[in-house]
């Protein structure tokens, strides 16, 4: 994949779109697993925000810009803040 990117850079294009999709999807799965497995609930809320941003990028790539706008506004602006506010008012250590 590195050779593919290098050959495209020589020809003046960017990284091919399938590689972009693959990297994003891989990061999506990794952040989803992390956000479920980590013990500290505050970190889990933050990783959930990262997940939200990654899926927003995927939707942008697919051309669904309205959905990506909504996801960016709700995921980063509102939903992560709600989760962090809830974690501050309950306990911070996950019980499982």
């Amino acid at each position, binding site marked *: 994949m590195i050779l593919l990117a290098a050959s495209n850079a020589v020809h003046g294009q960017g990284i091919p779109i399938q590689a972009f999709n693959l990297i994003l999807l891989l990061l999506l799965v990794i952040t989803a697993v992390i956000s479920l497995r980590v013990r500290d609930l505050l970190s889990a809320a933050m990783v959930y925000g990262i997940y939200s941003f990654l899926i927003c990028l995927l939707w942008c790539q697919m051309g669904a810009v309205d959905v990506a706008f909504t996801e960016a506004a709700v995921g980063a602006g509102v939903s992560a803040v709600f989760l962090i506010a809830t974690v501050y*008012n309950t306990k911070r250590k996950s019980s499982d």
Partner: protein
Amino acid sequence: MRFFAFIAVLAVGLLLVSAVQEFPKFGDVNSPANAYELSQEFITKTETDTMVPNIVTAVLADYRGYDTMFETVVVFTGGLAIFAILRTTRREDRSEPAEASRDRVEPSATDSGRIIVATTVRLMVPVIQLFSLYVLAHGHHSPGGGFQGGVILGASFILLALVSDLPTTLKRFSESRFLAFGALGILIYAGIGLICMFLGKNFLDYAVLDKVIPDWMESVFGVTSGAEWARSHAMLAVEVGVAITVASIMFAIYALLSSNGRLRDGL
């Protein structure tokens, strides 16, 4: 037990991956979503029916406006549910007389460590709110619309509450006010639908609003086709309703969650 759960998750995951192989190619013109005649009708007729280039907003606010109205009602109901569950007034809060609040030292923004954030936020919040109004008003031509503009507006109030105290922000956007504004948005949306019904056509059938728009307004703006103009601007009005409700409920949920229902002191 966790072993069986893991097996179940693995089986469903493999099933999903094998189902994805059967999807049509991305952007295929013969895929079922594209070949369906209603999709073709939306794509070709939106601009001529409603004078709105953004097909997503047109479908959301006009062709499927009934669903968007209930989506707004769901947001309002969610806010009401959180209010009903969390809102408490403890006995020590109720009996707190005026001199206690006079003696209480307000955390001022010139405390060390907060002045940078406070100044930055004070410069940014007007820009954020202006941007949210832009997103709302430009939803006909660019990505955006009522819901996105409302969320950004609510997030600007949340930012204000994060930087300064929650009671300071509640002085600007008090509890009775945010509940009233939450209901006002739905009133605007359903009210436009009812006006359409009183004028003789179906609920939320915007084209009939052409009758209430005076003729001089149409000649001032140089509009030839009244029904499409009425539809485009009724869409803007219902998007304003959605934005008002969403903004107030987002701030309401934050205020209730961060202060544990008491609305005394936040994060």
